[in-house]
């Protein structure tokens, strides 16, 4: 038997939360895969949420009438057979230690969340460390109540951390707040402070030889814990809690920036040759059902040269450098809002058309939230394309657990000076050019390596082979 989580699914791009309107199954009921187990409502739509797998409903985590964010676990199912055991106490956990692909941690796909969290338990330090911070885990969870509740609290001038939450993970529900207001709020005798129901198995802080505040402790906190300072809200402002994707992205970006010694270098690349190859083959590729984007060309070229620069295809790890044995390229996909980085595995074994097809497929499934957990993990190097939206160049953040990311700028027509190879005469020509940026971890990648890498990439793209 395996216990799996049923999260509130993403039912549309503008939908950040849903209200559980009705449980169609109760604890102990057996359900078929895809059989509806609950109904949610959002605006003027009611929708059935089907079971992700067959099994028995063993826990209902959110009551009828409660509004929860997308990604919140609403129920647990016990499944027969080999489904992976999900770590049930990791739901609020933000420390993503395993997934090395940068924004892998931002993916909130039901399966992804369930599986990605399995390996973290032992290194877990966040919840324990949290209680040492200025704000307890309990207080923090309570603040993560729904916008409706926070608005009510604001209207009545109630500090939510003083209200006992009976909702999921100790959240304060509308009913809790109403009961609190009825009972006279702060004037009522203080309820016995209870331990927050989640995290359910908060790891107990090991009685450690190092006292709090020791260098070890500080380093651990520096690399694993993210504290987000708060700012006063002004009258006309609107406050919304971050959804899960945003929270994971936010923490990952902070940790990534803190950890790697970011440096960026730029190079301008001429795309005239790539453009010609692309035009010449477009119809042929179309007949093969492929669309080979500029990103596909860049991905192909990168995959061919990364092995020559092993530190860029590796990562600093403690006092070691890990040189990765595979070339797995993470491609950032804009979900608007949000971002996910699906991974093309062993890209150096694929042809240009093969890479084009994979990018199409992964991007499509990323937008439909159909990626499996393995498809967003294990990147050894990443590509992001701010240029697609017209940006000249960007300074991308290096995903945690890697040492390089390439940012591709907009490809634009420019007037450039070209030299006639025979006469040596200079003249002006119109060429398609783009500025690329390479973000690299200066702990293990030297500036000259980065420069050589970019020059090699330029050479590759400007003399793109016919038989790629």
């Amino acid at each position: 038997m395996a216990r799996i989580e049923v999260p509130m699914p993403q039912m549309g791009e503008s939908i950040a939360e849903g209200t559980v309107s009705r449980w169609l199954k109760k604890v102990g009921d057996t359900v078929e895969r895809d059989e509806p187990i609950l109904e949610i409502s959002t605006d003027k739509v009611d929708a059935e949420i089907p079971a992700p797998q067959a099994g028995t409903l063993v826990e209902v985590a959110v009551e009828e009438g409660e509004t929860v964010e997308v990604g919140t676990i609403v129920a647990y199912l016990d499944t027969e057979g080999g489904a992976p055991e999900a770590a049930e106490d990791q739901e609020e956990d933000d420390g993503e230690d395993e997934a090395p692909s940068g924004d892998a941690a931002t993916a909130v796909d039901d399966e992804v969340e369930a599986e990605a969290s399995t390996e973290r338990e032992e290194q877990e330090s966040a919840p324990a460390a949290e209680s040492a911070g200025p704000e307890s885990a309990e207080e923090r969870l309570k603040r993560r109540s729904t916008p409706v509740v926070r608005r009510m609290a604001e209207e009545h001038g109630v500090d939510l951390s003083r209200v006992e939450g009976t909702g999921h993970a100790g959240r304060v529900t509308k009913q809790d707040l109403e009961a609190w207001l009825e009972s006279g709020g702060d004037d009522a005798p203080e309820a016995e402070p209870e331990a927050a129901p989640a995290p359910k198995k908060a790891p107990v802080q090991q009685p450690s030889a190092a006292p709090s505040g020791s260098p070890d402790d500080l380093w651990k906190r520096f690399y694993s814990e993210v504290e987000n300072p708060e700012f006063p809200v002004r009258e006309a402002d609107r406050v919304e809690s971050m959804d899960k994707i945003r929270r994971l992205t936010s923490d990952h970006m902070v940790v990534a920036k803190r950890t790697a010694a970011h440096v960026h270098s730029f190079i301008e690349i001429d795309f005239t040759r790539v453009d010609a190859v692309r035009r010449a083959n477009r119809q042929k590729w179309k007949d093969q059902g492929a669309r080979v984007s500029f990103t596909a060309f860049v991905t192909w070229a990168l995959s061919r040269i990364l092995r020559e620069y092993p530190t860029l295809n590796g990562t600093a790890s403690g006092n070691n450098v890990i040189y990765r044995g595979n070339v797995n390229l993470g491609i950032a996909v804009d979900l608007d809002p949000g971002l996910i980085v699906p991974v093309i595995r062993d890209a150096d074994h694929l042809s240009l058309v093969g890479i084009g097809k994979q990018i199409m497929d992964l991007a499509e499934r990323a937008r439909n939230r159909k990626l499996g957990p393995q498809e967003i993990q294990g990147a050894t190097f990443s590509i992001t394309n701010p240029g697609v939206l017209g940006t000249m160049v960007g300074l991308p953040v290096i995903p945690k657990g890697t040492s390089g990311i390439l940012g591709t700028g907009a490809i634009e027509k420019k007037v450039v000076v070209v030299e006639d190879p025979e006469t040596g005469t200079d003249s002006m020509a119109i060429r398609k050019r783009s500025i690329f940026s390479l973000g690299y971890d200066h702990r293990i990648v030297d500036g000259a390596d980065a420069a050589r890498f970019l020059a090699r990439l330029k050479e590759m793209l400007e003399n793109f082979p016919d038989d790629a």
Partner: protein
Amino acid sequence: MSPPGSSPSNAPGRVLEARWLGLVEYGRAVGLQERLVPLRRSCRIPDQLLLLEHPHVITLGTGSSDGHILVTEEDRSRLGIEIHRSRRGGDVTYHGPGQLVGYPILDLKPDRKDLHGYLRDLEEVLIRTLRRWGIRGRRVEGLTGVWTEAGKVAALGVRVSSGWITSHGFALNVHTNLDYFGTIVPCGIPDRAVASMEGLLGTAPPMSEVRLEVARQLAEVLGAAVEEAEGLPGELDGEGED
């Protein structure tokens, strides 16, 4: 992000069957939809658009509050208004003769798995329909439905069943007797007027033309070809009528 309703067309050959069912009692229309949803899910029928009118009825969505019914039990039965609690989203509403009710039974899976996106699509269908008669319908942020200068002219309430199959839908006031809305707080929003096409135009457009336009516009938004069909899908024949 493309604007609502302007999505590119679906898979080629997608068909929307539009069916005019005339005056149908509310409970019967709900039962009919409940039988069509599994048929659509198993692809035994193409996308459907049921078009009909209801006899006087007040329906409560799952988000409804009884406090939004303003009429006494006595007056209600005198006026011949039924009450139904329904499994669609939204609050309380009124249906009655002169109101064009549309229940699309669609599979949203292929390309429009977005609950709010679907609401915006339905609004687009109605806004385009109104435009044909020169009425400027618009959306109001946070108040789903179609609004005009005189008030709300169309209401939405939708259900999406397992497998992204839709039911319930929209109600467009063509020449509805708006006095009946006085029996409720429409959609739970007080101080908001209700409008009809007749009130806006000074004369009622023919129901037959409005329903053809609605069917045509829904097909266009879905990127489907519309096929007018008579009565109920043949697939229902084997099953007992309710």
